[in-house]
C-alpha cells in the first residue's frame, strides 16, 4: 500500500500496438474499442507488497534453484542485473521481480511446450527476487536458446528472458522481455516488432556488461526497468481523506 499522488498516464507510444497482423494471435486478442482513460484512483495507486522473507536462498539463481543446489544447469552462465526505476528517475526499492525463460536449447519446462530440444534435468526456468533499497536486482542464470514457434512460415524467437515487475502500485504492473545484444533474430521477430519505434525496441536489448562479468565463471548483461511514476506538483496536495 502506498499513496503518493496520481500515476502519470501511460505513454502508449512506447508500448506495442495491441493489434498486429504480423503477430497473428494478437489479432483476436486485442480490444477493438478504445480503452477508457481516466486518472488513477486509490485502487490503481496501491498494490501488493512482498517481503524479502518470502524468498528462498536460491530463488534468484536459476542455475541451481531447480535442483536445490545439487547440480548446475547446462548453458552459458550469465548474470542478469539492473535497476528498477520510475519515470521520475527514482529507484523502486523492495519490489518483486520474477523471470522465466527457456533452457539453453530453447525448450521451456511447461506442459504445453513440445519442441524437441531436450529438457535439461537441472533447469527449471523461473526465478524471483526483490530489489534492494536502491532498486537493484540480479539473477544468475544461463543464456536461453532461440526457439521456433508457429506464426508465419518459419518463425524463431530471439533469445529472451520474460520479466514481470510489480512496482508499488497495481497500475504500474508490467510484463516485458529482455533481449540480448547482437542477436540477429531481434530484427526478424514479429513480437519485438509489435513495438513500432525501433528506439523503444532497443530499450529491451541488454548490453554485454564486462564490468559485472566474473572471470572464469559468468558473463553479465545489464537490464534496467522503468515503471510508471507519480505526478506531483507543488500545486497538487493529497485529496481530503486519503
Amino acid at each position, binding site marked *: 500500500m502506498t499513496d503518493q499522488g496520481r500515476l502519470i498516464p501511460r505513454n502508449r507510444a512506447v508500448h506495442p500496438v495491441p493489434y498486429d497482423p504480423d503477430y497473428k494471435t494478437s489479432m483476436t486478442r486485442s480490444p477493438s474499442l478504445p480503452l477508457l482513460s481516466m486518472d488513477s484512483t486509490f*485502487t490503481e495507486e496501491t498494490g501488493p507488497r512482498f517481503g524479502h522473507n518470502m524468498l528462498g536462498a536460491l530463488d534468484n539463481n536459476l542455475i541451481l534453484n531447480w535442483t536445490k543446489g545439487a547440480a548446475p544447469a547446462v548453458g552459458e552462465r550469465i548474470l542478469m542485473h539492473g535497476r528498477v526505476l520510475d519515470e521520475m528517475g527514482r529507484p523502486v526499492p523492495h519490489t518483486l521481480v520474477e523471470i522465466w525463460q527457456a533452457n539453453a536449447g530453447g525448450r521451456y519446462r511447461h506442459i504445453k511446450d513440445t519442441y524437441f530440444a531436450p529438457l535439461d534435468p537441472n533447469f527449471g526456468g523461473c526465478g524471483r527476487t526483490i530489489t534492494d533499497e536502491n532498486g537493484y536486482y540480479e539473477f544468475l542464470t544461463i543464456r536461453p536458446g532461440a526457439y521456433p514457434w508457429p506464426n508465419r512460415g518459419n518463425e524463431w524467437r530471439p533469445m529472451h528472458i520474460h520479466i514481470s515487475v510489480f512496482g508499488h502500485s497495481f497500475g504500474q504492473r508490467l510484463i516485458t522481455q529482455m533481449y540480448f545484444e547482437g542477436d540477429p533474430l531481434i530484427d526478424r521477430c514479429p513480437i519485438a516488432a509489435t513495438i513500432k519505434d525501433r528506439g523503444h525496441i532497443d530499450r529491451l536489448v541488454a548490453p554485454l556488461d564486462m564490468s559485472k562479468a566474473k572471470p572464469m565463471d559468468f558473463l553479465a548483461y545489464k537490464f534496467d526497468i522503468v515503471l510508471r511514476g507519480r505526478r506531483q506538483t507543488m500545486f497538487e496536495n493529497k485529496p481530503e481523506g486519503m
Partner: protein
Amino acid sequence: MVQSLDTLQETPSQTAGPYVHIGCIPTFAGLEGIYPEDLGKRAIEEGAKGQIITIRGTVADGTGWVMRDAMLESWQPDAAGKFPGQDGADPKVNGFCRFAADAETGEFELRTVKPGAVPAPNGTLQAPHIAIWIVARGINIGLQSRIYFEDEDNSTDPLLARIEQRPRVDTLIAKKTGEGEYRFDIRLQGEGETVFLDM
C-alpha cells in the same frame, strides 16, 4: 532547441507469452516444489471479515473462443474498503490474487471477500470493485479492467459514469448466480467487448 526533460520513459511491455505460468504460477506449468507456494495463491486467509464470495468466469477472444492460457491478477480492499497496508486493514485480506484460466475448460475462479467502497479522487466513493489485470499470449500489453457487483449500488460510481455507451457498463458487472456466487465473463474483442481501462 529546448531544455531536455529529465524524466525517463516507461519500459515497453511485451506479451507474457504462452508460458507465463512458469514464472508466475509455477505449479500450473508443472514446476512443483521450486517455491514453497505459488505467489498470490489466495486473496484471503481463513477468518477474513465480511462476505466470502466466489467469482467464476472465462476470458474469450474476438471469435468467442474461450481462452485456455489466460492469467489474471486481482487487487482489492477488505470488506471495509481498506487496502492491505492501510491503517486498520483486515490482516486476513491479502488483497492480491493470481489465477489462471483452466487448461481444459478455460474457467477461472476467484475466492475472496466482497470488497467495500473506496474513496474516489473527488472525495466521493467508488462503488465496491475488484481491479483485474489480464495477460496471455497475443496480449501485447496487460489489460486492466474492474469487476463490479450487480447487487451493489453502482449508480454514482465515477468510473462507470464515464462510460458513454451505457449498455457497455454491463460488461464490468458481475452477475449473481447464487448465494455468495457471481459470474464474470470477459470478452477481449468483438460483440460484448469488455471495457478495458487506461488508468
